[in-house]
């Protein structure tokens, strides 16, 4: 053991010398395990966009970006190890792509003064920037997603879901349980019946759950799934002959690999998406500068698919914040503190997205000290048997439902941890 630790120490010291003058973006990715199918395209998109910035523009504001990948396998213990091992390299912002790891990192990053960006996942009440000073979850969160789905269903049912039944098929983890409270509130308000059906990690066994759905025949099935669970659920829905149009996933349950296997049988399955699809100029540039140059993080086959686009969008938001931080601080080599201040002042409008070669990829939003959550808008997309087709424009959530829940939950967190509101004038 002693020998091992000495070896580890020396190798850590050799490897641990940070290269200066880089903008470091750690990517806590997962390319192995039951969630790798989602983790790989996201990590590829994130890394490729950063490489594109280096290749095309010479980095951000003249400083090269560097993505430090660390494999977590969607496991919280490995996530902690990754956080500790990458933190010393001058990490500007963490994006763990895991709600479980997010819960671990919220207090740690706050103490260490490093911003944490959990785009459309993580702790929903972190949208209250007054309490969660270093955590950001713009442009949307789970409670928004739940509300968006219900709003869309309301529209399809002429404004009333009275007497309908909606089943929530969720991953039995912090991630899957997040929307329950919102859906319960909405069920009371709109008069529908909510059935909660849990699927345990990793989600390969869903026989019982679909037996229950077959028996109860809910009007809609809403899914909060991730990784292999999505594919299995889509296949089970086909096997139980559940009408696919009434089966709706959230934005982590609607990527290409989730439905490709089932192909035409899954046609009609719908899901949310927080970023728009389609051909964007930026893809051609990534193809030219990154993939053709042999610098791609993956094999390049994921370019343009749902989660690749989302990873790229995440990198875009981080890069915009870094550029803003350079502008605000007047220094090209920014610190995490600069990054945090910039993220709080971030404004993403149509021109910014257009300029980056991804027009209309996400909603326009502005972050403020109180509101770290963005607008919460999402689009609805549908699988036509061959590809995802955008069904709607960005749908707004019902803030009158989500906002009180956010305030309530964040107040509880503030009380448990003795946190003072950080924003002066509220």
């Amino acid at each position, binding site marked *: *053991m002693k020998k*091992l*630790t000495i*070896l*580890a120490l020396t*190798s*850590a010291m*050799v*490897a*641990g010398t940070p290269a200066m003058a880089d903008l470091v973006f750690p990517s806590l*990715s997962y*390319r*192995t395990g039951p969630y*790798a199918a989602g983790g*790989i395209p996201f990590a590829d998109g994130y890394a490729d966009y950063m490489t594109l910035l280096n290749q095309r523009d010479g980095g951000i504001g003249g400083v090269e970006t560097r993505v430090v*990948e*660390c*494999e977590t*396998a969607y*496991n*919280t*213990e490995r996530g*902690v*190890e990754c956080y*500790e*091992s990458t*933190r*010393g390299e001058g990490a500007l912002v963490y994006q763990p792509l895991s*709600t*479980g790891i997010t*819960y*671990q990192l919220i*207090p*740690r990053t*706050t*103490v260490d003064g490093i911003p944490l960006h959990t785009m459309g996942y993580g*702790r*929903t*009440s972190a949208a209250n920037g007054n309490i969660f000073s270093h955590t950001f979850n713009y442009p949307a969160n789970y409670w928004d997603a739940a509300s968006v789905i219900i709003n869309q269903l309301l529209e399809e049912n002429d404004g009333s879901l009275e007497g309908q039944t909606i089943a929530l098929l969720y991953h*039995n*983890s*912090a*991630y899957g*349980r*997040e929307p*329950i*409270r919102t859906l319960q509130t909405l069920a009371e308000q709109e008069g529908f019946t909510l059935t909660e059906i*849990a699927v*345990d*990690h990793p989600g390969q066994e869903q026989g019982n759950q679909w037996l229950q759905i077959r028996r109860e025949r809910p009007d809609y099935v809403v899914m909060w799934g991730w990784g292999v669970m999505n594919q299995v659920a889509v296949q089970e829905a086909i096997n139980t002959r559940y009408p696919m149009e009434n089966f709706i996933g959230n934005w982590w349950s609607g990527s290409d690999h989730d439905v490709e296997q089932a192909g035409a049988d899954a046609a009609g399955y719908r899901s949310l998406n927080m970023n728009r699809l389609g051909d964007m100029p930026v893809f051609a540039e990534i193809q030219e500068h990154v993939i053709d140059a042999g610098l791609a993080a993956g094999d390049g086959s994921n370019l343009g698919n749902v989660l690749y686009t989302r990873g790229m969008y995440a990198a875009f938001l981080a890069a915009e914040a870094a550029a803003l931080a350079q502008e605000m601080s007047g220094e090209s080599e920014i610190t995490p503190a600069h990054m945090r201040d910039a993220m709080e002042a971030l404004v993403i409008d149509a021109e910014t997205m257009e300029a980056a070669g991804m027009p209309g990829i996400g909603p326009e939003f502005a972050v403020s000290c109180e509101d770290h959550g963005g607008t919460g808008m999402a689009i609805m997309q549908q699988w036509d048997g061959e590809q995802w087709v955008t069904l709607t424009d960005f749908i707004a959530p019902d803030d009158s439902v989500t906002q009180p829940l956010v305030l309530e*939950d964040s107040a509880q967190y503030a009380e*448990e*941890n*003795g946190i003072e509101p950080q924003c002066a004038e509220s």
Partner: protein
Amino acid sequence: MLYREAGDFSTTYSQDNQTFPIRFDRMGYYFALLIGAVVIPFLINDYWANSLLIPFLIYAIAAIGLNILTGYCGQVSLGTGGFMAVGAYTSYKLMTAFPGLDMISITLLSGFMTAMVGVAFGLPSLRIKGFYLAVATLAAQFFLVWMFNKVGWFYNYSASGQISAPERDFFYFINLPVTGPNAESWVKYLFCFLFVFVLSWVARNLTRGSVGRQWMAIRDMDIAAEIIGVNPLKAKLTAFAVSSFYVGVSGALLFTVYLGAVEVGEVYGITKSFLVLFMIIIGGLGSIFGSFAGAAFMVLLPVFLKLLLVDGLSFDTALSAHFQFVIVGALIMFFLIVEPHGLARLWSLAKEKLRLWPFPH
């Protein structure tokens, strides 16, 4: 040459009975303690504490606990993860219900709670043995995880079902935070070190006393043990109680000190039970040293391999993760083929050789 008992005379029974009868061994032990308690806290940084030492110490406690039950008393258990969860949830409930309580009391109380749960699940061991008992404890594993997921009271009805540790102090007059993000690494490390030191000392002395001999008698042949006067009810249930106490303490520390926020299905799932079982199989069944060696092997090796492959040889992270599986798996097979009695046996063979060296005949 280095390692011998020449000139090392025992003049009393207590000297003859001590854990490390050879002076060189004893000095090594004191030296390791000194390094662990006095030197490391000054040198430690966040990475070393959070990635290597704290998990190693915590898993060492769990491995000692399971070793008492499986290695010394011969009762195979696959419920370790579930019992660790009992420790974690007890400390969460205590931390939130009694904000004034210090961490030492909370951790000990969590251990006692787990001991009670362990005894309850140990009752079937009086009737069933071997694989059948393993299946019964497997039921405990799944039942406990299911219960902590299902019953909102255990996680104070939080929206996500996660539990997270608020900031609490070391002891009632030592006002240093051990849990929460403001806790210093060296405090967390010393807290775990203290528990490891006391618990392994207790375990060592329990196992060589009358209680431990009863456990071993039951392990070696329960009918014979009963005939010579060992009460199987008492022996088995004490083994379950002591083992669960250790496992509960380790589960509590894993949650409060190491992770800070826990989701029961992921952290205390069946994989955790297997992990601890592998630790004692690789380390050596029925050996306190083996528990430490096994925990070190399973906790430190993946991190070391990651450092070597990703940072040292610049492997792709995914490739290195796959290589880790291959290398760790191959090493486990290698050790089990070369030395089925685990690392502890290798260690004692090495000591044996050192005693004879350089004159092996």
